[in-house]
C-alpha cells in the first residue's frame, strides 16, 4: 500500500500486569478527582450511544441508597460487532479494574458481567480471572464482588433496561425512562451500566492520565476505539484506531478497492455510500445525524458485487425477529418495512410506497420506546435514500 495507513493503536489490548498498582494509585485519589479525570478525558460510552462515562458515574455516586450496582454490558449482539468478546478474552482484568473503581466510587458492593449467551465459552476463563481478582480486592481491602450473568440470546437484552429486566428474571423488555439506570436500574437500585470497552478504557485513563487519552481523537470524540471490521475486506478483524477518522481513510486502509458502501454501527447504524466517504467522520460530533457517525465499532464494507436490497432485507429480517414486540412502532413497523420493500421489489406496490415507508421509519425513530426501534430508521433510511434504484429494480 502506498497510502499512509491509519495508525494502529495498542492501548486496550496491551497486556499489562500492574492492576494492583493502578488500583492502589486510583484509590488514593478522591472520588471528585476520579470523576474529573473521566470527564476531562472525554470518554464516552463505547456501546454506541455515547453517554459521557464520567457523568454517568457521577450521577450514580450522588444517589443516596443502601445498595447500588455496577454492571458490565457484555451482551454484544449488534450484527458485525465482535470486539467485546476479544477484550474479555484478552484483557478481562482491565474491565474488572474499571468495575472496581466504579464500585468504590458509587458505593456498590456487587457487580455483574452480563455475558452474551453465545459467549458461554468465555465463562470458565472469566471465572478464573474473577477469582484471582477477588483475592486482589481482599488484599487491598475493597468489599466488592463480581458475578457473571449469562444472557439467553435475545438481542434486546443488550438495551440496558431490558438487561435489568432479564437479570431480574423477567421478560427482556425495555422500561420507560425516566427513571434512568443511575436512578433506578437493576432491582430498582442506582446502577452504572457500561460497555466492556468503556470499562477497559477507564483503566487506560487511570493509568496514563486523562490528558493522554484526550490527546487522541477529535473534539467530542476522544481516545481510541476498537473497530470490528468485516465484509468485503482482505483484512477482517479487530482494530484499535484513533477516534474521529474520516471514513475515506478507513476505506483506503481496509476495503478491497471496490467499496460502494460502509455500514457504520451494525444493523442499527448508518449506511454510507461511496460519494459520502470523504466527508463522513467516525465519532461523535455535535448532532448525531449528518456527517459524523457514532458507532459501537462495527464496520461492514460492501463492494459493488453486493445488493443493497439484500443487505437491508437481512437487517430488517433481524429486527423483525429481535424486536421485543412490546411497542407498536417497533413490533409492527419492522414487519411493515420488511414486507414493504419486498412488495416494491415484486411490483406489488408502486415505487412511491417507499416514500410511505420512509415516513414510517421516521415515525418509528421518534416514537419507539427504546434504542432498537428508534434506530431501525438509521439503516433503513440511509440505504433506501442512497440506493433507491436497487430497492426498486
Amino acid at each position, binding site marked *: 500500500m502506498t497510502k499512509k495507513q491509519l495508525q494502529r493503536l495498542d492501548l486496550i489490548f496491551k497486556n499489562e500486569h500492574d492492576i494492583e498498582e493502578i488500583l492502589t494509585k486510583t484509590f488514593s485519589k478522591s472520588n471528585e478527582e476520579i470523576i474529573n479525570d473521566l470527564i476531562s478525558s472525554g470518554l464516552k460510552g463505547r456501546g454506541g450511544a455515547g453517554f459521557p462515562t464520567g457523568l454517568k458515574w457521577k450521577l450514580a455516586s450522588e444517589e443516596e441508597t443502601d445498595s447500588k450496582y455496577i454492571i458490565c454490558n457484555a451482551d454484544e449482539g449488534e450484527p458485525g460487532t465482535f470486539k467485546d468478546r476479544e477484550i474479555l478474552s484478552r484483557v478481562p482484568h482491565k474491565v474488572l479494574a474499571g468495575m472496581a473503581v466504579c464500585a468504590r466510587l458509587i458505593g456498590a458492593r456487587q457487580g455483574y458481567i452480563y455475558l452474551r449467551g453465545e459467549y458461554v465459552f468465555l465463562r470458565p476463563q472469566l471465572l478464573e480471572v474473577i477469582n484471582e481478582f477477588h483475592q486482589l480486592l481482599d488484599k487491598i481491602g475493597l468489599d466488592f464482588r463480581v458475578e457473571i450473568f449469562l444472557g439467553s440470546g*435475545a438481542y*434486546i437484552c443488550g438495551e440496558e433496561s431490558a438487561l435489568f429486566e432479564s437479570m431480574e428474571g423477567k*421478560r427482556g*423488555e425495555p422500561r*420507560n425512562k*425516566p427513571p434512568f439506570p443511575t436512578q433506578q436500574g437493576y432491582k430498582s437500585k442506582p446502577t452504572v451500566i457500561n460497555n466492556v470497552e468503556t470499562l477497559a478504557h477507564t483503566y487506560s485513563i487511570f493509568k496514563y492520565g486523562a490528558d493522554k487519552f484526550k490527546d487522541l481523537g477529535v473534539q467530542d470524540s476522544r481516545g481510541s476505539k476498537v473497530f470490528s471490521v468485516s465484509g468485503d475486506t482482505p483484512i477482517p478483524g479487530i482494530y484499535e484506531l484513533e477516534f474521529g477518522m474520516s471514513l475515506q481513510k478507513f476505506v483506503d486502509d481496509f476495503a478491497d478497492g471496490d467499496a460502494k458502501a460502509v455500514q457504520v454501527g451494525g444493523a442499527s447504524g448508518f449506511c454510507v455510500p461511496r460519494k459520502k466517504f470523504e466527508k463522513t467522520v467516525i465519532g461523535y460530533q455535535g448532532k448525531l445525524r449528518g456527517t459524523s457517525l457514532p458507532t459501537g465499532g462495527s464496520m461492514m464494507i460492501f463492494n459493488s458485487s453486493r445488493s443493497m436490497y439484500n443487505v437491508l432485507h437481512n437487517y430488517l429480517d433481524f*429486527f*423483525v*425477529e*429481535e*424486536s*421485543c*414486540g*412490546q*411497542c*407498536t*412502532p417497533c*413490533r*409492527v*413497523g*419492522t*414487519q*411493515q418495512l420488511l*414486507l*414493504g420493500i419486498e*412488495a416494491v421489489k415484486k411490483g406489488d406496490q408502486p415505487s412511491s410506497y417507499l416514500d*410511505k415507508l420512509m*415516513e*414510517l421509519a421516521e*415515525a418509528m*425513530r*421518534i*416514537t*419507539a*420506546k427504546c434504542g432498537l426501534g*428508534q434506530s431501525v430508521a438509521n439503516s433503513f433510511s440511509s440505504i433506501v435514500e442512497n440506493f433507491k434504484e436497487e430497492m426498486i429494480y
Partner: protein
Amino acid sequence: MSDKVNLRIDNIAVSVEEGTTILEAARKVNIRIPTLCHHEDLCVAGNCRVCMVEQKGSDRLLPSCAMPVSEGMEIQTNSLKVRSARKQIIELLVSEHRADCTRCYKNGKCELQELASEYIIGENGFIDLVPLKVLTIDNFSPSIIKDDSKCIRCQRCVRTCDQLQNIGALTVAYKGKDMKISSFYEKPMYEVVCTNCGQCVNRCPTGALTEKTYLEQVWSAINHEKKHVVVQTAPAVRIALGEALGMPAGEIVTGKMVSALRRLGFDSVLDTDFTADLTIIEEGNELLQRLKKVLVDGDKSVKIPMTTSCSPGWVKFIEHTFPEYLDNVSTAKSPQQMFGSLAKTYYAKKIEVEADDIVSVSVMPCTAKKYEADRPEMRSSGYKDVDFVLTTRELALMIKQAGIDFASLPEDEYDSFMGESSGAAVIFGATGGVMEAALRTAYEVVTGREVPFDDLNITPVRGMEEIKEAAVKIENPLPEWSFLDGVELKTCVAHGLSNAKKVMEAVKEGKVDYHFIEIMACPGGCLGGGGQPIPTSPAIREKRSQAIYREDSMKPIRKSHENPEVLQIYEEFLKKPLGEKSHELLHTHYTERNRY
C-alpha cells in the same frame, strides 16, 4: 406537600404536583390525548405509543402516559409531527388487527375502531398482516373467548391478570413479529389457572377478549312455545345496567330492568337477591355450626376460618392455588346456583310446570358465572340448574335489540314467589356485603338482638380498601349459643384476587386468626365484575357502590332472616337450614385443580 410543577400544554398553563404525568396534566385542563394501553386500574405500560406528544426542543416525541411533567415544559398534543406519528401508529395497529368490524362482537364498542374512525384510516394503509400469521380463536371456555387475530398487544389483559388479580394466566409469549398474549404452554384458557373473572374482558380495548354470549339461545327459549323461561337478576346488575344503556354510573334501575325483562318475554322475572338471603341463612348457620364443632366439640375435621363461596372466580382460584384449604370454603352454593336448583324443583312445582320445560336464565355482573353454571356439580335438580348465564352487557344488548327505550320504561316489580329480598341481599353486590349481611343475621340468631351498629350499617366492612378487618364481640348470647359468650368474632374482607392471595398467605403462615373471610374475585366485589358495563374505573365502581348501599337503605326489610319468602320456603319445602333438602339442593363440594 411537594412543589407544583408549571408547564404549558397546547399553550394552556398547567400547574400540577410533581410526579404527575403529561397525560394526567392534560386531562386536568380538559385536553384529551388518545390512549390504548393506558388504563386507570393498571400500572403504566407505555407500549402502544398512541399518546405520544411533542415537547418543544425535543427531537423525539414523548409518551404522555409514562412521562412525568417537568418545570417549564412546553407540550403540544396535536402538532403536525404528533398527528402524523399518531396516525401511522393507529394504521400499524389496524394492520395487525383483523379489522372485521361489522362482524365483530365489539363493533361500536372498540377503542381501536374509535381511533381509526377519528383519524380517518383510509384504504391506503399498510399491508394487512393478519392473513400472514397463524392466529387462533380460543372458544373452549364457557366464559371467555380469546381471539388472537384481534389482539393489538397492548397488554392491558396481561397487567390485569398479573397485577390486579395476581393470577398470571395471561402472559406474553415470543418476541418480535411472533409476540402474542398467551397462556401456559399455549393451552386453551379453560385448561389453565384462568378463573374466568373476566377482568381482562372489561379492559380489552378491542374484540380480542370477549364474553361467550348465549343471547341467541335465550331468544330461542323465549320464543319457544312450550318453554317457561325463568330469569333471575343478580344484585349488582340493577345498579350498573343503566350505564350500558346510556345512563350515568350509579343509577338504580331495578324497576325499569324488571319492566324490560317482562317486555323481552321472560315468563317469570325473579330475583337472585331472594337466594342471596337464603345463602345467608345457610352459610350463616354453617358458620355457627362450624364454630360449635371447633370450639365445643373440638372436632379437628372441621375447618376455621370459613370463607365465602359466592364468587365463582374465587372458588376456582382457591381450587387452583390453595387446594389444601378447600375444606375451609363454605359448602353453600352461590345464590345463582341455589336459585337454579330451586327453580327446577320447588318453583316448577309451585307454578305447575314440568321441570323439563323450565329454562333457567340468569343475568349476572360476571363472566365466571357462565363457568359456574357449567360445573358438573351444578345439576342437583336433575337438570342443568342454570341453563344460560347472561352478563349485564348482554342484557343491555337484548334490550337494544328489542327496540325498548329503556329510559322511558315504567318501574315494575318482581314476580312472586322468589322475587322478594332484603337489603342484606342487595349489598351482596359490593365488597363486604356478604359479610355485613351474614353478621346482621348471625349476630341476631346468637344473641336475639340486632347487630350493634347504627341503623344496621356495619361500616368497617364497607368501602374500597383492599383488605378490611372487623371484629364483633358476642355478649350475652342466647342459652343455645352460650359457648360464644365473650368470643370476638374476627372477620376479614378482601376483593380482587391479588388481595385474596395475600389473605390466604397470611392464613397459611398462621399470622391471622379469622373466623370468617369474605372474598370476591373482582375489584369492588360484583359491582366491578367482569360482566359489567365497560369501561370500569375506581370512580365508576365507587358510584355503583353508593347506589348499592342506597338501595339497601331504602328496603323495608334489611335482614335476610326476615325475608318472608325465605321463611316460607323453609316452612313449605326446605324445613330447616342445613337440613336434608338443603344438602341435596343448596350445598356442594370443590375440586383440586392444576397449578398452572
